[in-house]
């Protein structure tokens, strides 16, 4: 099966500019996640969608970050305006529920953002 697709792979912007990242999950996966991975740290969940509804966005900085998942498939994560501390890799993942009830995530290659 095709994996999780993300674009762009790399983006360099100046602070206060805006940027958008796109994610296409594995076909049939109802749950989609955006994680932020700052250099030297583990990934941190920003937002989780179940179909096109938000399940958890408690760690999303809503004053500058927004995300949507139209029609329950593709998703876009936007940052406006960007700050220096937003430099990170943005990972998209999707999952289908296992028989056990667990969500096992499959990750995309990530989008690396550098804010100058």
């Amino acid at each position, binding site marked *: 099966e095709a994996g999780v697709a993300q674009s762009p792979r790399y983006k360099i912007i100046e602070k206060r500019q805006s940027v958008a990242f796109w994610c296409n999950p594995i076909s049939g996966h109802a749950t989609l*996640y955006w994680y932020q991975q700052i250099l*030297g740290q*583990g*990934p941190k969940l920003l937002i989780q969608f179940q179909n096109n509804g938000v399940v958890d966005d408690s760690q999303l900085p809503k004053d500058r970050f927004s995300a949507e998942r139209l029609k329950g498939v593709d998703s876009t994560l936007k940052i406006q305006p960007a700050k220096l501390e937003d430099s990170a890799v943005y990972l998209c993942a999707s999952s289908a529920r296992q028989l*056990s009830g667990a969500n096992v*995530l499959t990750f995309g*290659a990530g989008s690396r953002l550098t804010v100058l």
Partner: protein
Amino acid sequence: AQSVTQLDSQVPVFEEAPVELRCNYSSSVSVYLFWYVQYPNQGLQLLLKYLSGSTLVKGINGFEAEFNKSQTSFHLRKPSVHISDTAEYFCAVSGAGSNYKLTFGKGTLLTVNP
């Protein structure tokens, strides 16, 4: 709330030596446990998972991990490493249930030297 502690930020080993990467977790509910590997400039790839059943879990690339409930640990092991195992390894935990989020540790950089 749940959390993961990876006790070593870096582990250097020689090729063909055994390795253990340590992971401890805390959670107030039953858990699912995972190890992911991240090669440079790539996303995370699932190595293995514990969902239920046998506490010894085997994964890809010859890795295995043992779930120890009393010690709240899920250490990753490989009896003989290769140069190609050099990567960042992340332990992760989620509560049992579809809406529990996956929480990651800070990662352990495994460097295999010739």
